[in-house]
């Protein structure tokens, strides 16, 4: 009796795990089979790459990949610069109005860029950044979350190191660059992983501010490709979906431990 109870939990855990991966596994399987075999669950059907060929020819995927890649890079560089400077100011520089400013920054955690789409669209157009990668990335660069994270990381740096560098005649910028940034490397890594996976997957804002294949990221490209109006069949959509999630998914499976650690560090601190 107690044996059965003991076994219930592992079985529950495994059943849930199987349910959780099944959409992915099924789409993967369908991507390699013809539509009629896929919808009929013909498990013995032969494997094919036709869906990938059709999907590949249906949209400028390489362009989309490059756009997404450029987008996450631009955002990450911007975020690193902005959040490092602001995080350092909040952690180690004393100036009047600092606490008020910090509250203002934290408020942005709740003024989601997603909610302000209408005015941000107007702003980006006004700045002449409509349909540019910079325009897609800019609203995310001053990330309150990142500033908060960097502040926490910089606060953990022993003040003795700061003093020592100052005695050696290091400038403020020198201290930041030579003492604080290297010591916060794990936080940068964590933040980078979270940022890249967030913006690799972002959809609504890029949908609004991009208007051509030259700037469109993967998610937007995928949604246009799979739109019912295009009449693409489901196996081909699966193939396209697999193609577009493959890089991040593979990276995740390989660096799983670091990935999870990164999310933990980013979420908890």
């Amino acid at each position, binding site marked *: 009796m107690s044996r059965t109870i003991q076994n219930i939990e592992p079985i529950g*855990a495994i059943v849930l795990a199987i349910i959780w991966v099944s959409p992915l596994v099924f789409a993967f399987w369908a991507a390699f089979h013809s539509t009629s075999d896929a919808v009929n669950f013909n498990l013995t059907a032969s494997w094919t790459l036709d869906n990938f060929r059709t999907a590949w020819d249906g949209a400028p995927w390489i362009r989309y990949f490059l756009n997404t890649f450029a987008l996450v890079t631009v955002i990450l560089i911007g975020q690193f610069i902005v959040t490092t400077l602001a995080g350092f100011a909040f952690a180690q*520089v004393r100036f009047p109005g600092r606490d008020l400013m910090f509250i203002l920054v934290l408020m942005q955690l709740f003024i989601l860029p997603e909610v302000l789409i209408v005015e941000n669209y107007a702003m980006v157009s006004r700045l002449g950044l409509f349909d540019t990668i910079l325009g897609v990335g*800019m609203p995310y660069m*001053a990330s309150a979350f990142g500033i908060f994270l960097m502040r926490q990381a910089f606060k953990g740096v022993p003040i003795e190191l700061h003093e020592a560098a100052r005695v050696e005649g290091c400038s403020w910028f020198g201290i930041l660059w030579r003492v604080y940034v290297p010591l916060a490397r794990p936080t940068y890594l964590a933040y980078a992983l979270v940022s890249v996976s967030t913006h690799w997957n972002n959809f*609504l804002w890029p949908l609004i501010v991009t208007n051509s294949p030259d700037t469109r990221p993967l998610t937007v490209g995928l949604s246009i490709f799979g739109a019912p109006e295009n009449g693409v069949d489901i196996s081909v959509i699966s193939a396209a979906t697999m193609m577009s999630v493959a890089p991040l998914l593979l990276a995740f499976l390989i660096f799983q431990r670091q990935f999870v650690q990164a999310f933990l560090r980013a979420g908890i601190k």
Partner: protein
Amino acid sequence: MSRFVQIERRRQAIYGWILLSPALVLLSTFAFYPSVATFWSSIFSRQTRRRPSEYVGFENYSDLFADPTFWKVVINNLIYAGATIPISIVIALAMALWANSKIPARGFIRTAYFTPTVLPMIAAANLWLFFYTPGLGVLDQIGGLVGLPSVNWLGQPSTALWAVIMVTIWKEAGFFMIFYLAALQTIPEDLKEASDIEGASRWTYTRRIVLPLLMPTTLFIMVNALINSVKLIDHLFILTKGGPNDASKLILYYIWEMAFAFFDAPHAAAMTILVLLVLGIVAGIKFTILDKRTHYQ
């Protein structure tokens, strides 16, 4: 001496503001100014070719309150939040407890739970489309095996919203699991030993010791889940487009539709302000009540 201190203080102030300026410029441009501008445009009428935009006070808001679609969308979003928040938290907790215990195939289990988190919502929607398609979809095929009739999950008002909710839970439960896992690892081993000595069952230990210790994490996750219930709408674009008959339309999708499909910016702005108000209340609760108990130092 005091002169020196004063100069040093002033220098620090200048440095502080210089360091902060890029962040402040960007935040003002893309968060603070747009919030104010949104409010401003919400109290003016829509500009048409014949009539210029004019001040209308809170008319846009009263239009919204008189609009049945608006209420439909608000109720949908309440159901969406009311279902996704508790269900994904409970599942996340179960996942974390399992993934943290000595269980066979733990590596596979953890990976399986977390994988949806790294997928774009759009891709997730495409995967689930396969499950929901009437006649062909996996759900129908499984139902067919036990003799259930074919169901158009996304095409009928009674199920469309729930189909959307399911995808959201699938997407976010694994993410929340991570926070629980982290918290579980900070629970000291001796508490388990002590309760073993006392002869407490695993269930009692979980309920009396683990769950109370996880409370701050739960509150943190709740705030995140609440924000997600406003933000996570990407899959609507693939699965239902808010239909049928607005049955699965959520607030942010309606804002998007109003602004970019119907070109009615003032009403979209009014709705945005209402969302910001709600988020502001959540923020207020978080910073005043919750932060006293959570792990921010």
